[in-house]
């Protein structure tokens, strides 16, 4: 299995410990990662897609053309990178006029888009290509005794016609790969509520966004007893971690550690937490100690 590793902008700049976790853990599962040298922003929906569609498609196809040159499909963790790259390819394959215009633009840079490489989300690759059995087999430590809740990235669910791989209304793949590490995954009524961190909502109306997310965390707290939240999207990771400080204000405390899947996977494989899980707002030490101390 060879994939072009598309990191996006946030991960290598703000949460590079997740990048490190992916680079260390995925090869152990038989996933060979190829760097997509020279890739740019996907582009994020708030940038060129909000200003000029052709420019936006040109940037996406710039990225896809790099994978095309290398003859690989793309693997991505960030939900919005996944959605942006996936939707761009679907649009270009459907619309010859746009494809021609984009190829004229790419030609200026000596590149070409043919649309061969497919973009896959990490959950999809882990569940459907690697499989839960293999994950359980290779780990050296496990999450037994730990309770988790999971956050499905919206951008991997909708529109399912273009980018779905799980059941959009009742996803289960992230839960199952977390269970493959030994944790108990608990459900709650607002499990599928968007984290709220992407796009303009939190930027333009932060207090309203906090209220929205508080409903989710209240339900989580009342209905489950999670030791941790497991996500697999860089925005979910940063937002669900950071926002707990602002949720905690009125006397109530929220401090549930948030991990990216690649991080707990790497920890279960025995990699150094200082490299694979060192950046967070809510302290994660206790969980990390539990994992690194536990023998499977």
């Amino acid at each position, binding site marked *: 299995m060879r994939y072009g590793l598309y*990191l996006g*902008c*946030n991960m*290598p*700049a*703000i949460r*590079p*410990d997740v*990048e*490190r976790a992916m680079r260390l853990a995925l090869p152990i599962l038989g996933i060979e990662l190829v760097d*997509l*040298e*020279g*890739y*740019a*922003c996907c582009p*994020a929906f*708030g*940038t*060129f*897609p*909000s*200003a*000029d*569609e*052709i*420019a936006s498609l*040109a*940037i996406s196809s*710039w990225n896809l053309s790099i994978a095309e040159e290398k003859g690989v499909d793309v693997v991505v963790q960030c939900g919005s990178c996944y*959605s942006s790259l996936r939707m761009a390819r679907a*649009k270009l394959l459907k*619309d010859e006029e746009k494809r021609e215009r984009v190829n004229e633009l*790419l030609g*200026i*840079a000596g590149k070409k888009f043919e649309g061969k490489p497919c973009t896959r989300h990490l959950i999809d690759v882990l569940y459907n290509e690697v499989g839960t059995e293999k994950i359980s087999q290779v780990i050296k430590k496990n999450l037994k005794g730990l309770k988790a809740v999971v956050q499905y990235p*919206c*951008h991997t*669910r*909708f*529109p*399912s016609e273009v980018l779905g791989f799980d059941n*959009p209304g009742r996803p289960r793949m992230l839960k199952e790969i977390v269970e493959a590490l030994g944790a108990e995954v608990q459900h709650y009524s607002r499990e599928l*509520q*968007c984290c*709220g*961190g*992407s*796009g*303009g*909502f*939190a930027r*333009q*109306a932060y207090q*309203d*966004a906090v*209220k*929205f997310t508080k409903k989710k965390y209240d339900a989580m707290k009342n209905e489950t007893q999670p030791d941790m939240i497991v996500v697999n999207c860089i925005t979910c990771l940063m937002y669900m971690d950071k926002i707990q400080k602002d949720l905690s204000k009125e006397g109530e405390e929220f401090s549930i550690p948030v991990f990216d899947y690649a991080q707990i996977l790497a920890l279960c494989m025995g990699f150094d937490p*200082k490299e694979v899980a*060192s950046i967070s707002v809510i302290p994660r030490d206790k969980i990390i100690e539990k994992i690194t101390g536990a023998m499977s």
Partner: protein
Amino acid sequence: MIDLTKANHHLWKEIMEEDAGDIRRCFNCGTCVSGCPAAEAETPLMIRRLVRMVLLGLEEKLLEDGTPWMCVTCTACEEMCPMGVKPFEVGLAIRRWQTRKDETYIPLSTTEVFQTGHTQPVEKVGELRRSLGLPEIPPTIAKFTELLKKFQAMLRETEIVKNNDYMFKE
């Protein structure tokens, strides 16, 4: 009162692109609002309302409306709309129309992506990256100056950059 004599009846043709589905099929059911995170804001994002504004041709009102920029891009609405409208794409199409009409709508992040290739300073966190065992600069466009130049040359030929070139600096 809305004065429809001043409405621009061609507005929907100016704004809507094929990818957004046919908004004339929208029957105002509100499904796109009921599951929308940004509809919970005090000044809510309501795609169904925006669709009405486009269809009625309320150009001035729409140009002033900042709610399309609140979308969190979750795309749930696109999954749910029973009429094959793509509310998420409608929102993006309105944003693009607004940026064409009024350059102050152009997101600054587009100029950052033009200038550096990214929305985040991936080349400026070398020490942190090194401490984790990673190369100081990730293998992105930030590492390859010649590629960034080509990237910018490509974008120079797009409408948004051509029409607002003073904003896009190398």
